């Protein structure tokens, strides 16, 4: 294990100050003399040629306390273009330098407010306005359920404002700064406390300012020079070129998306994931060349009956007995309150819309057609002496199953037992609406 800073083998940095700091009594006056030794010999150290101009003075202090005191002195001397540099925030330096409280909190508050409004509006517009979508009967605009997302967008925008606002206000990133030319300044991220006065300051005077810093207790003072030529301070051409190329490359996917959205194509989608769109199976009406008839559907094999599909009982399944319509009821049908109730329920669903709840043929469909000036008569099922009353049960069952004239068959909607239940109920309707007074239960009134 080595401690890089202390026993550094790099030539030139051998007498970098840290280890022998207390004994290293380079007074302020000796500061300049040290400069050459401190350079790393890279050529652009602290020595300066005629094409270099003074950026400012950099003074070093040993403690945070000394830095605060010096900052106060420099400020009291009327300097404005100066700054302190330290490895960590030194508490008490803000009033000493006269730094005004940043307005960042207000900006962040506004950012958060924007997030709140935008997040709320987004939810309202998307879920309640543009595409009102009923979910579980809840209102499309139901604030309690919208609170969490508004809350998150508020925080997100506040955070983004804080983060980017802080860097922007600090004018960072700025990877280059004149003081970075001074090797000693590398200690600002380690253990060094610096105060830099810029040459652009109104009251800057090389000697006077130096004296001021000496009086403020600086342990080391250096002049900082920058290249006077403006072109030397611009960003290298290759970096600009690289950035331009990268930007162009980054725009390619975006351009592709826009192109895709602006053009029409008959080609199918790209299927990166097939999403079960293509499955190794055949549907009943698809062609399939490997079968002789070219169809995927195999149909029923002759001479076979599917399980549960025999339906040999003519009376029950077809309402026929001995070649005639069945007049009684099949053995499977039980005449009971329950069957009748079932029949009524089915009748009210499937039959009543045309035949009416009372069976007289004026359900809501004919009634509406009549109201609109047309005619769509449905058979009166209960008319005294009509064919429906006299027809055998089997024929009635057959009519329900397979339909009659314009009436469709209901075999696909109602199972066999239900159709028989409807037969029973129609019989009950007929009976009840054609009943003689003598047939009424005792105590009933005839109105």
């Amino acid at each position, binding site marked *: 294990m080595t401690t890089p800073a202390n026993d550094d083998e790099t030539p030139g940095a051998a007498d970098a100050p840290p280890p022998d700091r207390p004994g290293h009594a380079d007074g302020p006056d000796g500061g300049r003399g040290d400069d050459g030794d401190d350079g790393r010999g890279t050529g652009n150290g602290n020595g300066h040629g005629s094409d270099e101009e003074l950026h400012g003075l950099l003074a070093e202090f040993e403690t945070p306390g000394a830095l605060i005191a010096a900052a106060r002195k420099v400020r009291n001397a009327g300097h404005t273009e100066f700054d302190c540099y330290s490895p960590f925030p030194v508490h008490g330096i803000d009033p000493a330098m006269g730094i005004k409280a940043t307005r960042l909190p207000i900006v962040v508050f506004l950012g958060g407010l924007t997030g709140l409004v935008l997040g709320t509006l987004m939810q309202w517009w998307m879920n309640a306005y543009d595409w009102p979508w009923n979910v579980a009967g809840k209102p499309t605009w139901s604030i*309690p*359920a919208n609170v969490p997302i508004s809350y998150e967008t508020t925080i997100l925008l506040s955070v983004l404002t804080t983060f980017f606002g802080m860097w922007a206000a600090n004018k960072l990133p700025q990877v280059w700064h004149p003081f970075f030319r001074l090797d000693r300044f590398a200690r600002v991220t380690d253990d060094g406390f610096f105060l830099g006065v810029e040459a652009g300051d109104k009251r800057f005077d090389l000697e006077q300012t130096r004296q001021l810093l000496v009086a403020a207790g600086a342990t080391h003072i250096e002049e900082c020079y920058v290249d006077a030529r403006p072109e030397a301070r611009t960003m290298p051409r290759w970096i600009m070129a690289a950035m331009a190329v990268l930007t162009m490359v980054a725009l390619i996917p975006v351009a592709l998306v826009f192109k895709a959205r602006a053009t029409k194509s008959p080609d199918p989608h790209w299927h990166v994931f097939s999403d079960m769109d293509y499955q190794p199976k055949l549907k009943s009406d698809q062609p399939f060349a490997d079968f002789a008839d070219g169809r995927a559907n195999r149909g029923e094999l002759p001479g076979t009956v599917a399980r549960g599909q025999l339906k040999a009982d003519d009376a029950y399944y077809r309402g026929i007995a001995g070649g005639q319509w069945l007049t009684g009821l099949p053995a499977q049908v039980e005449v009971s309150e329950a069957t009748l109730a079932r029949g009524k329920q089915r009748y009210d669903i499937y039959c009543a819309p045309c035949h009416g709840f009372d069976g007289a043929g004026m359900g809501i469909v004919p009634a509406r057609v009549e109201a609109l000036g047309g005619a769509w008569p449905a058979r009166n099922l209960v008319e005294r002496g009509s064919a429906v009353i006299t027809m055998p049960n089997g024929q009635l069952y057959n009519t329900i199953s397979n339909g009659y004239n314009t009436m469709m068959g209901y075999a696909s909607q109602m199972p066999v037992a239900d159709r028989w239940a409807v037969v029973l109920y129609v019989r009950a309707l007929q009976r009840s609406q054609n009943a003689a007074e003598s047939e009424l239960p005792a105590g009933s009134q005839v109105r």
Partner: protein
Amino acid sequence: MSATKSIHPDEKYKADKMGGRLFKVGLAAGAALLIISVILGATKGDHWRRFLYAYVVGWSFVFSIALGSLFFIISHHLTRAKWGIVLRRLAEFMAGTLPFLFVLGLVFVLPVLFGNKHLYFWTHDGLHDPKHPLWHHMHHKFGWLDPAFFAGRYVLYMAVYIGLARYFAKKSAEMDTAPDAAAAAAIADRLRVVAGPATVAFGFVTLFSITDLFMTLSPTWYSTIYSVNYFAGAMLATYCTLALLARVIQQNGKLVHSVTVEHYHDIGKYMFGWTFFWIYTAFSQFMLQWYGNIPEETIFYSYRMFSDWQYVSLALLVGQWAFPYLCLLSRWTKRILPLLMFFAAWQLVFHWVDLYWNVMPNAQWTMETTAHGVFNMGPLAGDPAKHTIGFHFLDITVWLALVGLFLAAVGKAMKGNLIPVKDPKLGECLAFENY
């Protein structure tokens, strides 16, 4: 910050006669208002029902402050917090009212024990009959909601609170008379060690005591976060009261150098923090029950959302959360003392509204079987004309009477030094600065 300061030489930190004065003023006001309330309650002709409900609201208000103060003390010892040491004694005085609050609480606990049926619905006649419509909701917990067992639990809960409050106050007072710094430090260390188990005891007792005392007012409703929500309100009220009490003491010429704007700033931060935590728990409870839409749970909110109570609900949302929350965001609201005092008083009033809103609708609990045989229960049942807040002047007088009596008890407890003068960290607290 390890900077320290010693107590300012001109500082007046002895309670002297101030406690006595507070006691007298509080007692006079409290007693007078209580007499008025009793008269109002007696003339209302509802078997003291309204009076008891108003009393529970007022009691829960002062109880929350004492409870919060107790937690303030314990948590400060536990975390070795330094900023609040100058306020600790004040919290100890407030927590010292717990024995007195125990006696005041008997005013509604004893009637329950002796067969009053008007406060807690679970004492209702006929509930034990299996034919009663609520029987299937309630029968399994008759053992728990038994008047004698309930009163017993009340005594147990209060015994734990009082024991903790007395222990911490006693040891803290001992610190003042400690012969040397080492002895004081030993006491401080001891208190820190005890604070651990004390927090555990406090937490578990509070989970159940609040459920028992206040949640069972609504007989079939339940919420697991209920006591956490009450605790949040209690802490908020405690910080508000601490700010006001410290300011009143300062205006009487004491502690003027010890309690600085930095301490108020921190109180303000906690007010802000607990306001947030309060709305967080309140919203969690509301949102989950609203979203879940289960009748047993929504009964609590349906009444507070669809009767006249909806205006109280909205007022609470704005008054207890939105308005103070936005204002307390700013550093300056917390540092300009008149503003901070305004918000402390404001939040205390709305803390009462919060408790009123929690408790009072239960006073309108009714049950009826409609003509169609449909059974209606809860505050929304019955005549829609009765779906009002039913505000009575009594609600306010009882509250203020109990606040007066609470202050009298604080005055009674206010003896000796107003700050723990020998606390080993007092110096750091006095030099405390926000950065």
